[in-house]
C-alpha cells in the first residue's frame, strides 16, 4: 500500500446500492432526524481566542482556583513538612542545620533517608511557590490564603534556603515569589483565555507528568543517581534493546523494577516535552508569561540539561537506529510508522528549543531590568495580595 492509498473522502452516509431518488430520500430523512434531535449542524467552527482577548474571573472563581492549587501543591504534598521543620529548627527544637541539609548534592551526596524526605519537602514547597507565582501573575488567583505569606516568607528569606534555590539549584520563580511576598516588584501578565488555558495545562503537565513517580525515577537515573543498583548506563542500554524496553513498559505490579519505572517515566517525560512545547506555542507572542511557564519546568531542560538532555537525546537516537523487525515491517507501509517518525523529528525540535535557554530570557531579563526601572513590573503594595495591586502590565 503506498502513501497515497487509503480512504477517500466520502462523508455522505448514503448507500451506493440505492437509486439516486432513494438516496435523496434517505439523506432527507437523516437530515430530518438530525433536526429532530437538535443536531442539524454536523460541524461547529471551533474558536481560538486572540492573545489579547480578556478573560473574566469572578472573585469566587479565583478563590476556588486558589483552593485547588493549594490542595494540589500544598496540602496534597510534603510542603507542610518543610514549614514544620523550619519552625522547629528556628525555635531550637530540632537539631538540623539547614546549611548542611540544603547542600549541593554534587559536593556531598544525599543518602540519609530523613535528609532525602526533608529535601523533598522543601522541593515541594518551592514548586508550590512557583505555581502560585504564575497564578498570581496571570490573575488566576487574587492573593493568598490568610497566614500563608507569614508562614512562607521567612523560609524563602532564610539565607541557607535562598542558597539552595538561588545557587545550588537555581529556580527563578521562587525568587520572584519571595520578592512578591516581601512587597517588592512583581510581574503581572495579561489575563487572557489563552494565557489562563496555558497555565492550566502547565499545571496539569507539572502535577500529572513531572510529579509522577515514574518520571521522578527516570530523572534520577538520567541525572546519574544510583538507585537499587541501576544508573544512567542501564537506561541507555535499555534503549538499545527493543524487546527489553517493550517488556519494561508492559510489566505490571510488584514485579516492576526501578528500570521498568524509569522506562515508563521516559514515556511520560516525552509526553511532557511534547505538551510543554505546545503550551509555550499557545502563548507565543506573550514572551514574558511564556518564559514564566517555561521556568516551571526549566530546571530539567536548563540547569540539569547536561545530564538529562543528553540522556534523552541519546535514547531517542538509539531507538531511531533499531533494525526493522517483523512488527516494524508490517507497519512500515502503514501510517503507524509515520507519526512516530514525524513525532521523533518534532520531539527533537521541541527538546532543542526547550534546552536552548531562549525561553528563559524574557522573564529573567525583564526581572533584571525591573530592578532598575519600572519595566513591565509593578511595585507590590499589598504584599501577598500580589497581582491585585495597581500598576501597568
Amino acid at each position, binding site marked *: 500500500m503506498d502513501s497515497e492509498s487509503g480512504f477517500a473522502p466520502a462523508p455522505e452516509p448514503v448507500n451506493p446500492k440505492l437509486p439516486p431518488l432513494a438516496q435523496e430520500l434517505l439523506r432527507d430523512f437523516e437530515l430530518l432526524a438530525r433536526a429532530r434531535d437538535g443536531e442539524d449542524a454536523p460541524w461547529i467552527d471551533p474558536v481560538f481566542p486572540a492573545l489579547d482577548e480578556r478573560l473574566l474571573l469572578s472573585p469566587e472563581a479565583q478563590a476556588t482556583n486558589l483552593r485547588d492549587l493549594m490542595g494540589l501543591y500544598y496540602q496534597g504534598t510534603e510542603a507542610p513538612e518543610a514549614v514544620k521543620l523550619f519552625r522547629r529548627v528556628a525555635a531550637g527544637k530540632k537539631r538540623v542545620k539547614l546549611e548542611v541539609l540544603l547542600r549541593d548534592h554534587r559536593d556531598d551526596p544525599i543518602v540519609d533517608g530523613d535528609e532525602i524526605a526533608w529535601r523533598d519537602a522543601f522541593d515541594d514547597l518551592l514548586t508550590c511557590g512557583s505555581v502560585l507565582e504564575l497564578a498570581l501573575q496571570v490573575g488566576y488567583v487574587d492573593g493568598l490564603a490568610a497566614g500563608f505569606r507569614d508562614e512562607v516568607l521567612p523560609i524563602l528569606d532564610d539565607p541557607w534556603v535562598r542558597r539552595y534555590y538561588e545557587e545550588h539549584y537555581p529556580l527563578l520563580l521562587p525568587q520572584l515569589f519571595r520578592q512578591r511576598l516581601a512587597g517588592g516588584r512583581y510581574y503581572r501578565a495579561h489575563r487572557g483565555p489563552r494565557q489562563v488555558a496555558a497555565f492550566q495545562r502547565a499545571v496539569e503537565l507539572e502535577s500529572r507528568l513531572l510529579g509522577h513517580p515514574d518520571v521522578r525515577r527516570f530523572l534520577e537515573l538520567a541525572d546519574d543517581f544510583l538507585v537499587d543498583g541501576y544508573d544512567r548506563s542501564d537506561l541507555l542500554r535499555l534503549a538499545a534493546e527493543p524487546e527489553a524496553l517493550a517488556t519494561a513498559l508492559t510489566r505490571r505490579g510488584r514485579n516492576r523494577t526501578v528500570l521498568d519505572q524509569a522506562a515508563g517515566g521516559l514515556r511520560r517525560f516525552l509526553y511532557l516535552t511534547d505538551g510543554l512545547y505546545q*503550551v509555550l506555542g*499557545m502563548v507565543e507572542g506573550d514572551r514574558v508569561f511564556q518564559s514564566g511557564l517555561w521556568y516551571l519546568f526549566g530546571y530539567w531542560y536548563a540547569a540539569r540539561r547536561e545530564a538529562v538532555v543528553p540522556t534523552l537525546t541519546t535514547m531517542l537516537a538509539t531507538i531511531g537506529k*533499531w533494525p526493522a523487525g517483523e512488527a516494524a515491517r508490517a507497519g512500515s507501509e502503514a501510517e503507524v510508522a509515520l507519526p512516530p517518525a514525524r513525532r521523533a523529528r518534532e520531539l527533537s525540535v521541541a527538546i532543542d528549543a526547550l534546552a536552548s535557554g531562549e525561553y528563559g530570557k524574557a522573564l529573567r531579563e525583564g526581572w533584571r531590568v525591573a530592578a532598575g526601572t519600572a519595566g513591565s513590573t509593578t511595585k507590590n503594595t499589598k504584599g501577598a495580595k500580589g497581582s491585585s495591586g495597581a500598576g501597568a502590565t
Partner: protein
Amino acid sequence: MAQTHYTVRKLPWGSESIVRWATEPVGRAVVFVHGFGGEALGTWDQFATLLPLQPQAAGRDLFFYGYDSLVAQAPVSAAELRDFLQTLWTDPVAGVILPSVQDARRADPAFRYNHVTLVAHSLGAVVVREALVQAAMDTPPAPWLKDVSLVLFAPAHTGAAILDLANEALGAMPARFGAAAAAGAKAYAQVLRDLERGSDMLEKLKEDSDDLLGRGYDSLRAKVVVLGQKDRIVQAVRFCKDPGPTIVADKGHIGVCKPDAGYPAPLGYLLPHI
C-alpha cells in the same frame, strides 16, 4: 469570556482518570475513552485545553477516563466503565463529584446529569459500546441509555489490524517505540485477539447492538464517526446503524483525535453533540 472550567482533578474511577469540572455546571458531561495503549489524557492531546475555550463546552464536565488497555480484556474494562457511568447518573455527587473535588462547590445533593456524550478512540469505541450493551442488559435496563450520545474517532468496533495496532500501542510513545510491539504484544495477547476482525467478542458485540437497536436503543447509533484518511488500522466498515464515516485528510489512526490550532476537526465534529 469567563473562566468555564477548573484545572484538572484526579478522578477516583478507572486508571489515572482525570476530570475538568465546569465552573457553572448544566448537567451535561463529556466522557473521553482512550484506545489501546493510550492514556486518559495523552490520547486526546490538547482536547482538555482547547475544548474549554469553546462556548458550547461551557457548563460541561469533562471526564478523561483511563483504563489498563494493554492488559485488561475489553469486556472487563467495559464493566468498570459501565459502573462509572451508572454512578454518574444515579449518584453523581457522592459517587463521583465529592471524592474528586472534596469541597462544597459541587455539593448540591440534587444535582443530576441529563446528558452524557461518550467520545471514544479505537479500542475505546469497543469498550464504550460493550459498556452500553451491558447497561442495556442489566435488570432492569439502565434508564439513562436514552440520554447518551456517541462520538467515535477511528473506532475499532469492526476489528483492527492487530499487529499494526500493537505497533501503535507503543508507537503512541513519541519516537519509534512502536517497533518494540512485536515483543510487547506477548503481554497483551488477549486484548488483541478480541480486536481481531471477526473475533467472538466483536461478533457478539455487533449481534447485541443490532438487537438493542431493533428494540429502540437509538443512542447506540453513533452521532458521528471520524476516520483519518491515512488510517490503515481500522476498517471504514459501518457498524450496525452508524452513519458513514466522516473522513479527514492527512490524518492517520493516532492523529485523528488530537486537535490543535491547525487541526480543529476533532473539536468541530464533537461540538454539535455535547
